[in-house]
């Protein structure tokens, strides 16, 4: 783009605009910087500190040692990974099958199936009927209760359907003429063409499961099945850090101090994986937002 001579007013605006946007970016970024720096700080120095924290006060890895040695956190981590991996594979498969069928233009029940999907976005039984349903199915306090109720999201089916509808029909028609089955068309023709959007919905499902806690809170009673977020809730919201602190770590004041850095170390361990991944997948996310927005 050519640059034109600008008025003084425009130059002043540019400077202020840049400062304002950098400030917004800083506000978005600072909480994570703070958490990372605090988790590495010396517990006693952190207590006395006030104001911005942009570098660690001292360099201590004790908090990480306590967190990683804590059975709750490792159990939660393993459970979350299990729910994310198995749940996402199942979700992907079901979403792809649903989207394929409702995107077939010549399929007579297409609209009926579409309505079945879309209705669920507006109407649901509500908290108690859903809970009793899980209870009746015998899924209470099972790992499946974390995977099945959220297995298919109609929203993601619609995103994938929209994309599949935009694929030229001629591609699959020639394959169908040659005698390929629908399943073959789906896997060998449609699936490879949908990969970018498929990446989007995979990420939506994975991030959704990684961050979810509510279903775990109402459906699970057994701590050995808790996902990471539920343990995080105990530590961050309910302030129950006792189980994390090494009991032979001396006095009460020290324990309070250590519990703070342990909190931050837990946040880092649970959040940094996703924060490291998303910048590289950004363009896919953006694509998903766009397709989702023009769904009709």
């Amino acid at each position, binding site marked *: 783009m050519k640059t034109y001579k600008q*008025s003084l007013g*425009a130059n002043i*605006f*540019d400077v202020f*605009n*840049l400062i304002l*946007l*950098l400030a*917004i*970016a800083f506000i*978005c*970024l600072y*909480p*994570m910087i*703070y*958490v990372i720096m605090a988790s590495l700080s010396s517990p006693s120095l952190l207590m006395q500190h006030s104001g*911005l924290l942009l570098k660690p006060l001292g360099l201590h890895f004790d908090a990480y040692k306590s967190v990683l040695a804590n059975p709750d956190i490792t159990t939660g981590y393993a459970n979350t990974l299990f729910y994310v991996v198995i749940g996402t594979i199942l979700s992907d498969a*079901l979403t792809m099958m*649903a989207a*394929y*069928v409702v995107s*077939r233009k010549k*399929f*007579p*029940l297409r609209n009926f*199936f579409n309505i*079945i999907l879309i209705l669920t976005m*507006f*109407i*649901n*039984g*509500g*908290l*108690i*009927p859903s809970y*009793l*349903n899980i209870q009746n199915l015998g899924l209470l306090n099972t790992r499946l209760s974390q995977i099945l*109720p959220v*297995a*298919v999201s109609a929203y993601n089916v619609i995103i994938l359907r929209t994309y599949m509808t935009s694929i030229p029909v001629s591609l699959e028609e020639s394959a169908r003429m040659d005698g390929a089955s629908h*399943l073959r068309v*789906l896997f060998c023709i449609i699936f490879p063409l949908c990969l970018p959007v498929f990446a989007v919905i995979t990420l939506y499902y994975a991030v959704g499961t*990684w*961050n979810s*806690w*509510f279903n775990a809170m109402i459906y699970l009673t057994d701590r050995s099945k808790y996902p990471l*977020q539920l343990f*995080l*809730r105990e530590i*961050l*919201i309910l302030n129950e850090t006792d189980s994390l602190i090494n009991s032979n770590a001396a006095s009460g004041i020290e324990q309070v101090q250590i519990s703070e850095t342990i*909190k931050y170390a837990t*946040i880092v361990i*649970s*959040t940094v994986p996703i*924060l490291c991944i*998303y910048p590289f997948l950004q363009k896919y996310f*953006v694509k998903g*937002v*766009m397709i989702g927005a023009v769904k009709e």
Partner: protein
Amino acid sequence: MSKKQIKILANPSHSLSTRIIRALKQNYELYLIFLPVLVYYIVFYYVPMTGIVLAFKNYAPAKGIWGSAWVGLKHFENFFSSPNFTRTLVNTLRISIASIVVGFPAPIIFALLLNELRLRRTKKIIQTVSYMPHFISLVVAVGLVMDFVQRDGIINDIIAFFGGERIAFMTEPNWFTPIYVLSGVWQEIGWSSIIYLAAIAGVSADLYEAAAIDGAGRFRQLLHVTLPGIMPTIVILFIMRVGNIMSIGYEKIILMYNDLVLDKADIIASYVYRIAFGAAPDYGYSTAVGLFNTVINIFLLVATNYITGKVNDTTLW
């Protein structure tokens, strides 16, 4: 008369059943592929919908949903006559409207300002950084907010630096809505701006050129080219947002509130949750209150869908 009907009339030997069988045979593969999804939706969505009848029953665990006694509209009458009705309704509307008033324009302004930034690399970096809070889980986000607004947290440090009194934000009922809304803006401002940035990118460069030739400066271009260019997007998203006025993220409310701020924080959905899983669970009553909320939601969605349809016809979208 359509072609299909003519064909059927011309060939009366095709009875309904043979036609159905033929149609099934022709597409049996598609039915098979959809079957697991259909079963899934019936089991996990449509069966629970029948549980809505609980709203009109007194649930007795031993008798199950269908065996429990009918009580008619008793639960609804109880809800409408209880102080919780006005309280939760007012809270729902207050929090939701505040979220719209502050949270809706924020990403639009952010997108417009970002668009004015000429440094492309800086723009890209700011964009990426602004998405970050969206990926932080609700539990961690609320945990961070609580940490930052606590007595010796950074927000109070700043207030104290300017000579103000430290505020106990989390236990002060009147601060609940601002904290809820502003933390929501923090978490979603970047993510929500994606769609506006895309709309801005879609505005034709010719229009800017024409405006520039006519002597419009950058501010006038923003006002008379960019803004009208993204107006259809803004209008539709606004209508959809208003349609969702009664459905607030109750998970965040449940994480954020405590007994001290309940008066200003308890929304209908969090109330439903508390009666269902509180000390004295009442499944029937909880379902009834939840149903009340759902019915209003559906009404609003249908109304806004209708309005969006009208707007879609009259605008360039």
